[in-house]
């Protein structure tokens, strides 16, 4: 099975600090690949390089059979690489619906259109509503995004990402700040997304990781020290020492 996302020997340093130190990993269709690791391991920096908001010093990123290493974030997104942010990143002044419609719009035709009313484009709104329905926040569609609760904003963030129908989705701590119930509900939602949208997941919530992931990689000081099934990782001494040990 060929990988949707294939990262080879990625390197990024800030000054003398190697934040990403030769990372290789891949993401297969239909799977959830979780990256775990202690704070400061370079997880978010890695996501930034994969999504294109940060450019790596060396290495290669292939996405959907194409070398995207030199491409900006906008080009990668248009090729179907979606992402969410650790700190909720929405358009606060837009309605919930318009946030998602903006995402659909990016994938449906040119946005250099100057006259038609974007808010009245049914094609965009309908697809946006479908995504909101899936995340269970359809009843919030007309509310300003800034007024949502934290959990609802996280759901909106995800709705925005999946509305673009990505070929792969990079999730940067989607459960951050969520209660146990919300988190469990989100796990179920993500399980449903996995078949169409393979997930590269960064998450601190170990229950969520082990419930969702088909493979887990452990990132420590910019290096992947172990990769395997959740069970293998649970048994792996290096992984336990680096990360799981802290939890116990």
């Amino acid at each position, binding site marked *: 099975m060929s990988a949707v996302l294939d990262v080879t020997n990625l390197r990024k340093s800030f000054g003398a600090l190697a934040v990403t130190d030769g990372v290789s990993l891949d993401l297969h269709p239909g799977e959830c690949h979780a990256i775990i690791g202690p704070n400061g391991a370079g997880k978010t920096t890695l996501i930034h390089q994969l999504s294109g908001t940060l450019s790596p010093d060396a290495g290669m990123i292939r996405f959907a059979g194409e070398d995207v290493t030199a491409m900006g974030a906008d080009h990668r997104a248009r090729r179907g690489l979606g992402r969410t942010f650790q700190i909720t990143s929405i*358009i606060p002044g837009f309605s919930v619906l318009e946030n998602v419609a903006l995402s659909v719009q*990016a994938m449906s035709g040119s946005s250099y259109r*100057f006259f038609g009313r974007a808010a009245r484009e049914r094609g965009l709104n309908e697809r946006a509503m479908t995504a909101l329905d899936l995340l269970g926040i359809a009843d919030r569609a007309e509310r300003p995004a800034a007024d949502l609760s934290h959990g609802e904003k996280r759901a909106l963030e995800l709705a925005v990402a999946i509305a673009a129908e990505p070929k792969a989705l990079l999730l940067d701590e989607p459960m951050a700040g969520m209660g146990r119930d919300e988190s469990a509900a989100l796990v179920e939602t993500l399980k449903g997304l996995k078949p169409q949208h393979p997930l590269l997941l960064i998450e601190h919530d170990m229950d969520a990781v082990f419930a969702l992931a088909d493979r887990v990689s452990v990132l420590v000081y910019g290096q992947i020290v172990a990769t395997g099934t959740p069970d293998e990782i649970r048994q792996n001494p290096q992984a336990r020492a680096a990360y799981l040990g802290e939890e116990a």
Partner: protein
Amino acid sequence: MRAALPALVVLALFAVVPWLAEVWGGSYLTSLAMRAMILAIAALSLDLLIGHGGMVSFGHAAFVAIGAYTAGIAITEGVTDLATILAIATAIAAAFALVTGAISLRTSGVSFIMITLAFGQMVFFTLGALNEYGADDGLTLWERAEVLARNDVLYFAILGTLAVVWLLIDRITGSRFGRVLRAARQNDVRVETLGYGVFGFRLTAYVLAGVIAALAGVLLANQAEFVSPAIASWQRSGDLIIIVVLGGMGSRSGAILGALAFVGLEEGLSTLTHDWRLIFGPLLIAIVLYAKGGLSSLFERRS
């Protein structure tokens, strides 16, 4: 609709000024109204950048000056065909916006303000060095562009342009393009990671705004029958920002209300004292502090 109402009222007011002027004020009143309308056109274009795009350009008057000088020089050289003048002014403004925008938009925040200011000053000093066209003293026009020769035609041409530009900006901000522009003002990283090349959208807006401001400049030259480098000075760019803020950034009626209030206050206060800005300044601060959305917010009831 409610948000557009104040602008419609002001436009209607401008439409009856010529008749009003026959009773009171005469050409003083009409020229005042024309000045306000021309400022409103320029401010509308600047609001596309500031209010909708989050690009605080401090050199917007340069585009007005480009339009004014194009008209001034063309008429001095005997070219009085309005279509020709507009074509040249538009082309120069677009080219200047494309080049300076491409450079300025690599920065943001204070750096963007400073770079646009610097480009504006370049235009100011360049115009002052045009020895054949009046240099620092400016250039008096002995006639207007052909079709604008009659006073009433000029007046309604300005009013018509204002109405069209107002509708145009309203359509643009509500369009797909405008949606991306407005979103990028609030969160450009998210917009970029959704698949939009934010730079291209901003540059397009910058060029559009520059062209519209140049249009205002062409009208200004014909109305004042005089052009000088002062049109491009940073104070004029500041006036345009004041109008946008005073009226309410990114609102449907803001630029028009702001321009009317600005000209009104300037005229009213300057009859009281030569140092009218001493009163105008605190007034502006009060509006910025207590009516955050500017004058237009006083008319809009937000839920």
